[in-house]
Structure formats: C-alpha cells, structure tokens
C-alpha cells in the first residue's frame, strides 16, 4: 500500500524547515517522519498474509499531525483489512503525546466490503524502562467502543542486531461481527522480531508472532507463525 497522495504532498510541502535557512535559529523547524515499522510476510498455514504498519508525523517540538495506517491481506484467498487514522497530537509531558482524531476501517472478505468511521483518542510515548507505548480508545459511528494497547522494547544483541518483543491487546465493549470483533479481549498478539539495522533507517527482520482472536460466536482462533519483513523510516 502506498501512502495516500495527500500525505505525500503534505510531507513534501512541509519537509523544508519553516524557519528560513541561514537564519540564526532553527527551533521552529517542522520535520516529517515517515515510517514503515512493519512490511511483513507471515508464514502461517492457511492465509499467509502480508501486513503493513506505517506512520507519518509532521510537525515541530510540541504539535504534530499524525497519520497511521495498518492492514493485512491474505496471499491465499481474498479479503483484506485496512485501517487508517488521522490525528492531531500534542506533547502533554516530556515523553508523551496526546492524540485525537478519526479512524476509518475498511473490511473486505472478497465478496463484500464494509467500512466504518471511528473517533480516536490516544496516548503515545516512551514509558519508564524504555517501553514504546501506543494506546487508544475508539468509538465507532454506531457507538461501538474499543481500545488498543501496544508496547514494545528494544533489546540490543549488538549495536545493530536488535531483538524487539512486542505486545498488542485489543479490547471491545461489544461484538462487531462485520469487522470480526468480539467483545472482551478480542485480540492478543505477542511477537518477537530480530532486526538488523544495515543503516539506522533500514532493517530487515525475522521473528515469530503468536495471536489469539476471540470469535464473535464463542471460541477463539490461535495462530503462531514465523514472520519476515522490512522496517524502514525516513
């Protein structure tokens, strides 16, 4: 998936620091950060999906516009799940950004396509002991309430070989069958990826991911798979 054209335009327009070069101070400069944290293939049995997890922020020291996207598409069988978020974020304490905005989910099972809009409020930052944390609460246009918590940690094996354990929890207040969401702890995902930073901006990785999806009609589905992918930022 390519970033939406508006993201590219905005990034190009704003990547030149606002404070003209050659002036005394650059502390008002605007920066653009683009990251594909995961561009990944999962080798588990049936669907063998490809996934992406991307993020852009544009802004200065305290105020930033955030765009986040993630999606999954099986290489075997049809269907896809894609979500995008557009958020305004403000630094509320030295290590935390408070974010608020909208999210759009597009779900397709090959034959039918459904979409929903959500309001998102989140807190993202660095927790003590170096945990990168991203958390948010969502309310859909139909009043469905859900929440997400993600945490990860970089453990250095060498200066360039980095083990990154990750945890993601998705919670929902009610079932949303069209989007495969079950109430309660709807998804739990635990992963560990080892990346090699060829340069800081570009790192291929391999890893393992375990996830459990609660079914909307009781029961649950568990998957363990080897993963391989690329991580890139600019």
């Amino acid at each position, binding site marked *: 998936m390519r970033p939406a054209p508006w993201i590219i335009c905005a990034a190009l327009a704003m990547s030149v620091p606002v404070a003209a070069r*050659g002036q005394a101070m650059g502390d008002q400069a605007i920066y653009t950060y683009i990251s594909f944290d995961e561009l990944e293939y999962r080798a588990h049995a049936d669907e063998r999906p490809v996934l992406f997890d991307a993020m852009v922020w544009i802004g200065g020291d305290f105020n930033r516009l955030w765009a986040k996207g993630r999606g999954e598409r099986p290489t075997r069988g049809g269907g896809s799940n894609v979500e995008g978020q557009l958020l305004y974020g403000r630094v*509320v304490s030295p290590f935390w950004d408070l974010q608020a905005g909208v999210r759009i989910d597009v779900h397709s099972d090959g034959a039918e396509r459904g979409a929903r809009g959500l309001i998102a409020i989140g807190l993202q930052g660095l927790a003590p*002991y170096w945990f990168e944390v991203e958390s948010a609460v969502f309310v859909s246009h139909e009043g469905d309430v859900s929440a997400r918590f993600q945490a990860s940690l970089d453990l250095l094996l060498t200066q360039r070989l980095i083990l990154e354990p990750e945890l993601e929890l998705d919670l929902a207040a009610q079932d949303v069958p069209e989007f495969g969401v079950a109430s309660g702890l709807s998804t739990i995902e635990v992963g560990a990826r080892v990346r090699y930073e060829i340069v800081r901006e570009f790192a291929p990785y391999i890893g393992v991911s375990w996830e459990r999806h609660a079914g909307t009609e009781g029961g649950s589905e568990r998957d363990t798979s080897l993963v391989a992918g690329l991580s890139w930022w600019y």
Partner: protein
Amino acid sequence: MYKGVRPPRPLSRRSFLGYGGAAAVVAGADRLLPARLRTEGSLHRGAPDVLDGKDGPIELVIAETEIRVGGRRARATTVNGTIPGPLLRFREGDEAVINVTNQLEENSSIHWHGILLPNAMDGVPNVTFPGIRPGETFSYRFPIRQYGTYWYHSHSGLQEQLGHYGPLVIDPAEGEPQLFDREHVVVLSDWTFEDPNRILAKLKKRPDYYNFQKRTVFDFFRDVGEHGLGAALSDRLEWGSMRMNSTDISDITGATYTYLMNGRAPDAGWTGLFQPGERVRLRFINASAASLLDVRIPGLPMTVMQVTGQHVRPVETDEIRIAIAERYDVIVEPTEDRAYTIFAEAMDRSGFARGTLAPREGMEAPVPPRRARPLLTMADMGMDHDMAGIDMADMGHDMGGMENAEMPGMGTPPDSVPAAAGHEGHVMPGMAMGLRPPGTLPEETMHGPDQHGKANASVPVSTRSRLAEPGAGLGEDGWRVLTYADIEALHPNAELRGPDREIELHLTGNMERFQWSIDGVKSSDADPIHVTLGERIRLILVNDTMMSHPMHLHGMFMELENGKGVVIPWVDTVNVKPAERVSVLFTADAPGPWAFHCHVLYHMYAGMFRVIHVMEPDVHMGHDED
C-alpha cells in the same frame, strides 16, 4: 585515581617582547609553516594562509568550495576556500577592518568569538545585525582591545558544521609573558559528509542515531558476572526508570564525523615542525560543531599559558579536555630529535584527530589506542548525594583535585568580605573585595520544585560544583588532567566588586526528542534577559541535563568563580558538566543585545540560546527578575 596538577614551576625565563619582537615571532611562524592551514587537496589555491591586519583591510569570501577530506571529495562552506579559513592576525590596539563577501545562495555571517567589540559588529543574525545577504559585502570595523587566541565562525543556520570557521590571533601590546621560539595554531574540528540539516532531522526522529556504543544484552550479562545480578539489574533499572542512557556522551559521533586537525583527517595528519630544545607554543582551538576533544601529546608535558585568550599562571599538565569553542595555549619543550603525536580524542572515544610535532617533515610517532568509552554515572544524574544527610565536611572529598580549597569557607554569602588570607601572595591584605572568597565554590543545592515544563525530561536531585573533576572518561589513566580548578589568572582582577544581582539559569532539554532549552523555554519562545549597563551580574548556570553544555557569552568576558579569589580567570566559554552548578561573574559594560548560548551547534540551533540585553539605565524600564 585522578592526580592533581602539580604546582606550577616558577617562570625561569620571562620575556616581555616589544611590538617588534612579537612581530618577529609572528613572521618566523609564517615562514616556517607553509600551507599550514590549507585543507588537504583543496581545489581552491592561492588563498593566503595568514592575513595580517597591518597589511590593510582583510578581505574574506564565504563560498561553497569543493574540498577533499580523507581522500573523499566534499562540498564545504569555506572562508577564502580552505578549512579552516585563514589565520587572521592583529595586534592589541589595532583597528580591525574586515570585509566579508557572501557568495552563498543563502544568508551568512561571521561572529568573532570572544572578541570585545561594539554590538553591531558581533555578527549574530537577528540579534546584532540582519546577516549578510547573498552577493553582499559587510564591512566589520572594530578596535582591538585585547590579546589572545580566538576564532571566528558563521552564526547562520548550521553553516559552521560545513567548514565556515577559522583562527584569529591577537598579539599583546605589552609582549608575551612567556618566551617561546615558535608557534603553531592547531585548529581542531569535526567534519561530516552529511547535510547538517539532515543530521538534526535524524536526531529529532531517532536521538541515538549516531550512538553505536550502547550497552547490549551481553554487557548486562557480563555485569551480572562481575557485580552480581542485583547490582547489574538495579543499575539498568535506575537508568531505565529515568529513560536516560548512560552511554549518551555525544549526540554526534565518529559514526559520521571525521575529526580534523588544521583541516586534515587523521590518516593524512598535520605536521608542525620544531627544532629540539625549542619552546614551542601551541594554540589549540576547538572549532568543532559538536565534539568535546581530549588533547594530549604522549611524552610531552604541556604548560598551559592561556585559556580562552587570557593569560593564566603557567600550569603543567598532560591532558586537556577542550570543550567546543574553547582555546588553550600551551608551551611544550621537545628536547629529543623525534616525532610526537598530538592526539585529540573525542569525548565518547568514537574517533580522534591526530597530528605530529616533528623536527622534519615526513616523521611520525605511534598513534595511541583509543580508550574505552566512558559511562555516565549517578553523579551525572545529580544522585550521588543524599541531601538529607549532607555534611559539608564531606564536600572536600569531592574536590580532591583542589589542593588549595579552603572548605570552611563553603557557603559564605557572596557579598561578605573574606578574611585577608594570603593566597599564594595574590590577595592584597585589607583590600575590600566582593569576589567569592578563595577556596569556595557554589554549594551543593537541591533542585527546586520547578521541573521546567514539558520540554525538560527530568531534573537532578541536587547540583554542585564539579570544576575540580576532570570529567567523564578522564583521570584514570595515571597522568595529569587539567581541570577548571587549576586555572588562575596571571594578574589580579581589576574589578573587585561583588555582584549586584544573581541570575540563575537552568540548562534543560529532552534527549529523547532532541529538544534543548534554557529554563525549559527554547529561544524563539523566550524574552531577552535584561541587565543594566554597569551592573555586575552573577550568572549561576545549572545543568539539569545529562550532557555537557559549553556556554558562551558574547561581548563580555565571564569571570569563572573557581575558588581562586582575586586571580579569578576570565573565560568566554564555560563547559557545564551534567548535574553541575557553575557560577560566573560579569560586568555588563557593553550595551546591546548579546547572544548567550550552548556552543554545541545543534543544541543552540534547537533552542538553547538566550539574548542578554545590556540596556542603558535611562531606557531600562525595570528589571526582569529571572
């Protein structure tokens, strides 16, 4: 353990060279040092290496130039085509006339670092003048009212990183207090092939981008083996709880930097010549954008005679940490017919600049191995003292390097008159004096409740003077290391007044977002600090961060309160260590808005910058109490 510097030996040879004598020394230096300052392989030839003010107005041209660094081609922003730019030479009492033409496609400027001059000549865009527009020539004209080793550099954007700097030397009107047979100017700097704006963007997005010396999982297991699981774990948890990195010594490292000595990469090397038995003066200038450098000459002790351009009582040492923008003039006396390596190691040990002192061209001496990268300690967090149980008697322990420290004086109010104690014969009994009593340093102070807002990651528990400490990674090698506590002025201070007012400024930041500020406010959000012309100010600088900040005041010297009484040394730049409390005095005798900033270029550019505005009493509408 760190060894204190030995007491200076008496001056055996003391010479007051007249104007002609000084000129003779200078002329000799010129002849002996062809192409001394020329960048290796510079494509721009023909620029003179030394421009002397006595030959008429000096013409400088700022332009983009193709150069070679370590054999690689690069685009640099140069002054007269070389890195560093030409040596500008004046005599105290001269009038400097310097025409600077900007051939860049963006605004530029030249700031004369450490020079006392009219505000409009200081060269800081948006503070003292609009800058020099593309194609324009700006004429700097100012009387030279001082002597010493200085330098000049761009104050526009990040141009300084691209090579826009050079040395400036002023010979004293009264002659030199030390005899020397020849001199070499040694400009140290850091070069990158990257766009400095891109470096800053990377640091904003990933602050550890250039740190390839972090502690790994295997370092943890080794520490468990050496110190036990409990100790290793509590150490990691302590740093982790604060989201601070004990290996965060330098923002930008040898991962991108090539460290230069007079424009030459370590492999090419720069060579300065001497005849065995000569007294050789080396004028070290750290013109780096972001690198503190530890300078030593294995086998050759250095006698420091000037610090930031001001004569000091000669003191012998083996290694000097030269903070960004500082200058140290030393005398060395090589007696053997052999080469010596001048080794300038980056503070984080990720690289070095290197040159050679030799009797003949082509000689080389062994290059010492790089030492292990230092780790920050609890002292750098301001957490090594329990304030509840603080005992002044214990303070002496931390000032082991200060042989003359008189601890009972600790905490004496600044305006009290000390007992007329003799201090190496410099204190004149009975003289009314408002200076800090000899042997006293700023007391250890608990940090107040102000956390400095959301642009500041954290504050130390307490801060105290660390002037007598050699600094992270120094003092364990079995040789002497110079500290600020070893420096004293050659002559007693003319100004003996105590401060009219104290201003306390906290150096703040958040490494994780690469934000840098003063009192938690970055420069563009900050109001100027107003002081009245003639006012005597005690500036207390408190470093709340875990990085070193070489703080530079334009337009006026700072008197560094290092416990030396009336022989208080003058500096234009003072390096403030992590969790340190440093106190300086200055007399606001130069009207106008003056820049005060961290000389880590990227810290300044990111906001660690203030304007100190010296205002005439009649236009001054009242104090901005800080």
